[in-house]
């Protein structure tokens, strides 16, 4: 969530920045990248004693923002019944019980601004101020003005009453003495620790000990006003009513709606399964290294036990010389080879889905493929053969994607004889590899939505985009009809959209599934990239309807704010987005199916051979049910070897039997291994019928 929060705050700040009209400001207090602690400000509302002043608000963004409200307090001292005149604490329902994730920092600052013009003395944060407002409103106004002048920089001549008369009466000594205790440290900073139950002296002593710089980072900067100006007259310990409960301002539950992107960023796909290119590479390398180490260790163990059991036999000579050589040189798959192998089985998953009657839905197959790809980020095909994981992934996908069929039905649909047990055995292992996240966000729905929007525009029923409210249906339609024609002239725009739709969909079903697109890009980015490949002018038109054109249009003179690229944040966004889409398009375009390419198929055969030798050492693929239990899951090979060495000097017949058994096992596996890359599933099916 933390990063979701950062993004959201970043976006909110950009919004605040872009809106110069409201005069609301917010910026990070210290480090520019740290958006968890901000300072907001707004002008005092006109027609109030606060007019002409600037009010700074200390804003802390909690870890689970936007689901919890930002913590705000007045940094600028203010004389107002709903704000503590001592601490700046605020009594406002939208910052507490009535907070809703759709509210923003800006909306909160606006509420604070309006709170200044509508004091609610019946529900006070500061009882003294409230009493004054109720009993001596004139006096209240005078003090409020006085404070605005002193602390908020309001000009003296405005709002009449604000004479500085009273300020000379301030018992300066008391305040100075009080501040002296802080020894030059920022009062708020010290107070923060005092709030934890330490007294000022101890905090200050501790600060000395750990050598906190008094004037160092901005965080520690002293409040000029507090040091130089006179200290407000008021007794030190007036009780303030914190969290007075009832609210003062009407709360609005919803002012803006959550956008799609916000939601995507809470998904497990984004939290757990999104990577940068580098992090993806390194994760795969690690998985490969661990698996390789394991395969080699098994090989060494097997070699040792062979040697020890062989020593009991009369003629060890030839065997013990050849074996160690072969096994010491076990050639493990590289991460790239593993990836090719997994991709092959992803393609197989598509084919397998087609063998069902009716064929399994695209969504189910796509989910299964992503399960496979996710599983093999932290598991190696050298340990778990993709063939068995594939069928299981497809079955789990039918369950998670609401395409329910019984296990029996499912197993019967697989060509060849696969038992229900074969399908279900790796289920738990698979789910563990998926880290128990079953949701996959596909680009298909986004594509359907985009196509529907384009068709609506073609019908003259286009809707304006949220950021470009001036768009008119007719204008949109004219724009659509004016786009550059595709290489082959088409009969109508509707047909053209339909064709682009079909091409894109095919790409999403193949290239998007078989590459790392899901790991690197968001669903919207993926479908837009594919759409760009399908019909570039059409896709660019679509982007323009959302984000405005590539060049600044000077036509809209009355609404220059929205169209001037210097002030329009969408322009920059469009440039950025296009560069991301170009990268993603290139990735999609680089894909060609393995089975269609003889060279790739040759490479695959070689990998399969290597895999067979690796798996010989670590033949655990048949033992999913117990694979988690290290203690009990003895692979058959080493189990046999252990049994042999345990029995001490084995008799001739025993070791012969052992050798025969091993040979048989190897033959079986060889058959199975060849099987894998032998006949295509389609021919297998005809064979089965």
């Amino acid at each position, binding site marked *: 969530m933390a990063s979701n929060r950062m993004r959201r705050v970043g976006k909110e700040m950009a919004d605040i920045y872009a809106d110069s009209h409201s005069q609301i400001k917010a910026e990070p207090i210290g480090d520019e990248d740290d958006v968890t602690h901000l300072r907001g400000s707004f002008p005092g509302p006109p027609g109030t004693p606060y007019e002409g002043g600037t009010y700074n608000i200390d804003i802390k963004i909690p870890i689970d923002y936007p689901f919890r409200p930002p913590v705000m307090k007045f940094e600028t001292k203010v004389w107002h019944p709903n704000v503590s005149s001592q601490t700046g604490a605020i009594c406002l329902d939208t910052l*507490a019980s009535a907070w809703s994730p759709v509210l923003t920092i800006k909306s909160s600052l606006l509420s604070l601004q309006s709170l200044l013009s509508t004091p609610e003395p019946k529900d006070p944060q500061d009882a003294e101020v409230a009493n004054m407002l109720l009993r001596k409103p004139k006096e209240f106004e005078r003090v409020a003005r006085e404070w605005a002048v002193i602390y908020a920089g309001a000009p003296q001549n405005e709002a009449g009453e604000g004479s500085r008369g009273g300020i000379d009466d301030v018992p300066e000594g008391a305040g100075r003495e009080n501040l002296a205790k802080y020894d030059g440290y920022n009062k708020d900073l010290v107070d923060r620790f005092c709030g934890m139950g330490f007294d000022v002296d101890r905090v200050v002593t501790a600060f000395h000990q750990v050598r906190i710089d008094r004037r160092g980072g901005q965080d520690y900067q002293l409040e000029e006003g507090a040091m130089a100006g006179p200290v407000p007259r008021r007794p030190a310990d007036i009780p303030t009513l914190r969290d007075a409960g009832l609210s003062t301002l009407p709360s609005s539950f919803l002012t803006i709606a959550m956008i799609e992107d916000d939601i995507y960023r809470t*998904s497990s796909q984004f939290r757990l399964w999104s990577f940068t290119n580098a992090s993806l590479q390194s994760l795969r390398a690690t998985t490969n*290294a661990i698996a390789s180490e394991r395969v080699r260790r098994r090989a060494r163990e097997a070699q040792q036990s062979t040697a020890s059991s062989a020593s009991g036999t009369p003629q060890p000579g030839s065997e013990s010389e050849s074996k160690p050589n072969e096994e010491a040189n076990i050639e493990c798959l590289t991460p790239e080879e593993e990836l090719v192998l997994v991709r092959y089985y992803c393609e197989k998953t598509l084919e397998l889905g087609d063998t069902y009657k009716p064929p399994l839905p695209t969504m189910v197959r796509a989910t299964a493929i992503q399960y496979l790809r996710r599983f093999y980020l932290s598991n190696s095909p050298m340990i778990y053969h993709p063939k068995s994981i594939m069928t299981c992934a497809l079955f789990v996908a039918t369950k998670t994607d*609401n395409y329910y069929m019984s296990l029996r039905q499912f197993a019967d649909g697989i060509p060849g004889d696969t038992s229900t047990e074969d399908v*279900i055995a790796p289920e738990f292992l698979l789910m563990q590899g998926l*880290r128990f*996240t079953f*949701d996959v966000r596909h680009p298909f729905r986004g594509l359907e939505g985009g196509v529907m929007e384009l068709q609506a525009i073609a019908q003259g029923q286009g809707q304006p985009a949220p950021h470009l409210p001036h768009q008119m249906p007719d204008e949109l339609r004219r724009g659509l009809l004016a786009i550059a024609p595709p290489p082959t002239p088409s009969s109508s725009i509707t047909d053209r959209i339909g064709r682009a739709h079909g091409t894109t969909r095919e790409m999403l079903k193949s290239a998007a599934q078989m590459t790392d697109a899901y790991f*690197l*890009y968001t669903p919207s980015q993926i479908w837009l990239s594919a759409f760009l490949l399908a019909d570039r002018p059409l896709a660019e038109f679509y982007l323009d309807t959302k984000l405005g054109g590539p060049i600044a249009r000077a036509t809209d003179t009355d609404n220059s704010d929205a169209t001037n690229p210097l002030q329009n944040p969408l322009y920059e966004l469009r440039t950025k987005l296009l560069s991301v889409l170009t990268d993603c398009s290139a990735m999609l375009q680089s894909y060609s199916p393995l089975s269609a390419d003889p060279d790739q198929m040759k490479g695959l055969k070689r990998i399969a051979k290597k895999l067979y030798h690796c798996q010989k050492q670590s033949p655990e693929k048949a033992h999913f049910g117990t694979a988690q239990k290290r203690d009990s899951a003895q692979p058959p090979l080493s189990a046999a070897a252990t049994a042999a060495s345990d029995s001490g000097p084995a008799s001739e017949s025993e070791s012969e039997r052992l050798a025969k058994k091993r040979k048989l096992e190897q033959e079986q596996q060889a058959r199975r291994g060849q099987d894998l890359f032998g006949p295509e599933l389609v021919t297998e099916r005809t064979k089965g019928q």
Partner: protein
Amino acid sequence: MAVSPFASRSPSVAVSSPNTAIRLRAAAAQNSANEPAPSAKPLQADQELTEQLNEDVRQKYIKGGFPPFFLGEGTYAIVYLGHLRDDPSSFVAIKKIKVNAEYKDGLTMDAIREVKYLQELSHPNVIALHDVFSSKDQNLNLVLEFLPRGDLEMLIKDGDIHYGAADVKAWMGMLARGVWFCHENFVLHRDIKPNNLLIAADGEVKLADFGLARSFADPYLNMTHQVITRWYRPPELLYGARQYSGAVDVWSMGMVFAELLLRVPFVAGNTDLDQISKICEAFGTPTEENWPGVTKLPNYIPSDRNHLVPLQGREFFQRQFPTAGPVGADLLMSMCTLDPRKRNTALQVLRHHWWTAEPRPTNPEDLPRKSGGTQKMGDDLSRRGGEMDDGPFKNAARQLDFGK
């Protein structure tokens, strides 16, 4: 380009994110000879990343006390009290899903749905799923938010508990926000009822039990109508509609609203047919005029021509639910509209002006409470989706058919 924002949803702030764990392990794997692995156990080369991650998660929690403190046990799951290993005061509820020997098709749909959707939904009014891990015997353990104040059903049923319009508004507000968030994520809950609305220590209402949830189907796909516990089931489902929307949850919300006000279920039918006739009596008989297309629904039963109840208007709701006030009655009416297309959406519900009208909603911490909540939570969490605690309506919505 997407960055890698691994984030922990754990209750503790200091838990390292899973991605960091991977990276730490990667580093450890390279230097395993001279550097100790971050966890107490030395790194084993043959322990796969997946298992290491699972082990890390498992080690984070302790099932509380000796013997482990049971919160509840049902046909479907056992719920234990647990806490973070590093912080014994951070309580969690650990729901261990029982392996069903009769169900041969692997992990059950209830468990899959619950895990799938709770992994995606992170909102103050939806029960938080902190982690999932597997234990040695391949049982699935869901680490859920600890909600010690029971559920709404408990408060509704207890005559000694007094609450008013402000309290109802607070509860409904939290429920509506939770449901809105689910719908915003394209998830239908499909089992909203008072005993699935749990209450946290700070008074927040949490939507729980996602065993019947599913994502919105694409327009041309059918869904089952055998969902939602009968008293909270909307007329379109009773009539066998196979394509429906978030409106089904809004109806359930309306029924919960009515029940909070009346303190008894508002329309409590003994059978599905009885439920339909009770709905007709209460709200009016659905006709082609007030609900175009209703007669085409698969299980539509024409009502007795001589006994047509006219559609109830505002006055009916105001008379029936005086405590809600006229504005509240208006909101309730908009949630109980027979035609699902005319029924308010969760978003419209949230935009209603009842929320800003007097009285103000009570602060969550100040809402009425009752002891025994922990036990109730255990019962609620160990129940299957759609199951009732007792009474003749057991398994009301259990018979799902997943056909098309």
